[in-house]
């Protein structure tokens, strides 16, 4: 393909940032300087086009080191990867992380999503406006923005800071809980680093109503050094992989099927059936993807697992690869989780060095390796097919299904895609057998489940409980509400979930139990709201969230989320301009069309929480 570049030459810093990812160009054909052979030897074609999936890593390189993506920089990346500039621009403009105009080198993202809102994020933002200036306006080389959920809801309110600069200078950090003074200090460049590699999550509580015996997924978190493969092995690590290699693929899948494990990412599909379908798919190669793009507001369990027990994820991915015949695995982690990413990258490197990954997995003769890919600030990329497109270097637009990932997924090949928590469950299933696993929890929802408690509870954190535990017991484990407060509602399942009332607190937390009351476990987010909660503000925030995160591909979601926000604003803010009954009916009409006609789960659930607030909490019946 001929690439027309008219944006002027890239700067030395831009060339360095791109070359740091791709290596130096070999010839003029790839954007380098002319060498003698260029006159009679053409390069490009398939070999270059097959590197398209490196577009996001290259854009990250530019953003990290230069701080924004200029025309010259983008066009240089395009020449290196043989991607048309218009397409690369479409990709870069899709993701929140990539700036397409010059930005200050220091930026702070302040979360104002539901959990942080409950912890005073609105006051924090107001004070920042007064003391530093409005969100988005730069001052002395620094800028702050409002951000959707950063996955630090256990320590709300949260902020995230990033400093761009050439290799070695780029740094990311988090501040949680954040105060106005703390954020102002970050914006002044004063305190750095905010958190180091030694940082471990303090607010984690892994308990169950009947003592510690049910803690399985979290048992190593906070107890075993997440950076040491020896510590992991000493704690029983890689025993499940050895067992899986002894059992062989078919037996592993049988155990998984017997375990009746349901996916923990939100869709609750039978994991064994998925593995079986990929294992049997005649088309080769097969790919494995671990979905670690945990972006559902109020969800942070996968972060805790990745930060606290990264080797378990590597081991589980390897078992999955062995069982389904994958030679290549990708772990796609959201960019807002730098510590998790570093821990995982470290674990992959150590596992490779110790022979658990590579051309001879644990001496089995099988080949498998893992590549860590970084999201770029797009909630939609947690949707599995959008995630594939994102890995492939495209806009994170979901694909229509069928075909399903097990038939045609990443790079069009049969793909096994599982959530982090789902994968970690596999270890015990392989070690102890599927039947033992299936004996725990409820008959239809087996095993334990991680719940992310946040909002107005005494002790926010990740809790592991047996499936079927009641919501009331779970909230009690977290210390219940603050003194003198009463419950207003619980937002179960995140922004894509629904509100549950006080009267429904005895719902058993299982897939069938929540379904019976028209709710969903979703991603395991449990946001508790007491009578001090600004419920209307929360609904507006959810509407803004979906409007901002819609990919824009299909009409019901693209325009529907916009209209939903407009109408809700009319109903709750500019009250005079609203014809109340008409507007409530209009919201319901939009909700139905989004649920029925959207391409993916985002649009299909974009009205779920708001509709449940209208119906269950009667927020609009004033």
């Amino acid at each position: 393909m001929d690439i027309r570049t008219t944006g002027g030459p890239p700067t030395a810093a831009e060339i360095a940032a791109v070359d740091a990812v791709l290596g130096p160009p070999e010839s003029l054909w790839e954007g380098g300087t002319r060498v003698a052979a260029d006159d009679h030897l053409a390069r490009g074609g398939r070999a270059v086009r097959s590197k398209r999936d490196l577009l996001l890593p290259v854009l990250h390189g530019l953003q990290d080191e230069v701080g924004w993506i200029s025309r010259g920089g983008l066009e240089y990346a395009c020449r290196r990867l043989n991607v048309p500039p218009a397409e690369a621009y479409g990709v870069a403009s899709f993701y929140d992380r990539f700036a397409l105009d010059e930005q200050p080198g220091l930026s702070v993202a302040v979360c104002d999503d539901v959990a942080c809102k409950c912890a005073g994020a609105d006051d924090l933002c107001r004070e920042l406006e007064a003391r530093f200036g409005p969100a988005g306006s730069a001052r002395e080389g620094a800028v702050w923005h409002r951000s959707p959920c950063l996955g630090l809801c256990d320590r709300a309110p949260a902020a995230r800071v990033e400093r761009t600069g050439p290799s070695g200078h780029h740094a990311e950090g988090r501040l949680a809980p954040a105060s106005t003074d703390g954020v102002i200090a970050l914006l002044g460049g004063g305190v750095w680093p905010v958190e180091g590699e030694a940082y471990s999550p303090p607010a984690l509580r892994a308990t169950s109503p009947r003592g510690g015996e049910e803690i399985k997924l979290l048992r190593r978190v906070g107890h075993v050094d997440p950076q040491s493969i020896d510590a992991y092995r000493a704690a029983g690590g890689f025993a499940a992989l050895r067992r899986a290699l002894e059992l062989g693929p078919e037996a592993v899948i049988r155990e998984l099927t017997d375990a009746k494990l349901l996916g923990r990412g939100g869709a609750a599909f039978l994991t064994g059936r998925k593995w079986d379908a990929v294992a049997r798919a005649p088309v080769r190669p097969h790919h494995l993807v671990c979905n670690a793009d945990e972006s559902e507001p109020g969800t942070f369990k996968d972060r805790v697992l990745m930060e606290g027990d990264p080797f378990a994820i590597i081991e589980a991915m390897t078992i999955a690869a062995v069982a389904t015949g994958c030679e290549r695995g990708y772990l796609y982690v959201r960019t807002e989780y730098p510590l998790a990413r570093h821990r995982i990258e470290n674990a992959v490197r150590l596992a490779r060095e110790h022979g658990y990954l590579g051309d001879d997995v644990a001496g089995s003769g099988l080949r498998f390796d893992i590549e860590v890919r970084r999201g770029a600030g797009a909630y939609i990329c947690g949707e599995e097919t959008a995630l594939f497109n994102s890995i492939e270097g495209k806009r994170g637009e979901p694909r229509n299904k069928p075909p399903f990932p097990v038939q045609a997924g990443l790079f069009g090949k049969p793909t096994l895609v599982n959530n982090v928590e789902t994968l970690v469950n596999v270890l015990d299933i392989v070690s102890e057998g599927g039947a033992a696993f299936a004996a725990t929890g409820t008959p239809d929802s087996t095993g334990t489940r991680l719940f992310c408690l946040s909002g107005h509870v005494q002790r926010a954190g990740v809790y592991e409980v047996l499936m079927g535990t009641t919501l009331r017991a779970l909230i009690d484990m977290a210390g219940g509400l603050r003194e003198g407060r009463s419950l207003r509602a619980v937002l179960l399942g995140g922004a894509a979930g629904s509100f549950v009332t006080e009267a429904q607190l005895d719902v058993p937390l299982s897939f069938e139990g929540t379904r019976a009351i028209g709710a969903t476990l979703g991603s395991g987010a449990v946001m508790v709201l007491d009578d001090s909660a600004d419920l209307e503000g929360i609904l507006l925030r959810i509407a803004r969230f979906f409007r901002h995160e819609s990919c824009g591909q299909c009409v019901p979601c693209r325009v529907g989320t916009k209209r939903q926000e407009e109408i809700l604003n009319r109903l709750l803010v500019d009250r005079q301009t609203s014809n109340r009954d008409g507007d409530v009916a209009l919201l319901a009409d939009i909700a139905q069309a989004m649920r029925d006609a959207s391409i993916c789960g985002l649009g299909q659930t974009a009205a779920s929480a708001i509709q449940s607030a209208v119906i269950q909490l009667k927020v609009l019946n004033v």
Partner: protein
Amino acid sequence: MSSPVFVGVPRRMLQVSIDGHDVQVMEGMTILDACGRLGIDTPTLCNLETLTPVNVCRVCVVEVEGSRVLVPACSRKVEPGMKIQTDSERVRHSRRLVLELLGSSVDMSLCAPEVHGWMSRYGAQPQRFGPGAATVAQPVKVDNDLYVRDYSRCILCYKCVEACGVDAQNTFAIGVAGRGFEAHISTEFTVGLPESACVYCGNCIGVCPTGALMFKSEHDMRQADTWDENKQHVTETVCPYCGVGCMLELHVQDNSIVKVTSPLDHSVTSGHLCVKGRFGFQFVQRRGSG
């Protein structure tokens, strides 16, 4: 002389039920094709027979028994025993809302008459979202002599991007940029077409269903209020420039060519042309200058 002729894998006939009527359709057909066989008019906006289905407009959705959500007729292939409803309450509701959501945000006045027919069939009232509903209104982009881009009329059907890309031209001058309601068709960094990779084949105009992309000649005449399709006739001819044999339809008003198209079902062009066939007609009407 005896080399084998590959005729493809034999395709079976499948039995499906559409609105209660059992029909036999060929394996591999879409629900839209099957509806067409039964004479059921299905609204479509982003679908075109010469382009890969992107199923983004969602106006063609139908109800399939056993499916939790509605499915797009344009891209979903028929399966044995499928039970399809094309006019259920849910289908009518979603089609109506899609048309209302588009109508409230985009200027659809130049869409084909059939689009307005669907609007009334499904009772779409775009104005019910209120006067404050955000739109994609913006100034017309006029940056070259051949065609204009009026993105106030763009419903984001992706057709122009497909035609510019692998479905026809392989030029990749435009793509979808931004996200959500701000998603839009754009060149890199919104540079003007002369600075972009555009080769002015005009195939994006050929596939645009809303008049967002338009010949400059048509745009100028509409501005001057002289555009009148009732006074136009179409002359079919073959492009004189090279030996490929592209069929041209010259749209002539007042004895001047005002627009050039090619039929979608023409085996040579599939409706697509190059810059010469599409825009190189001025020599025909240089009168009186020798």
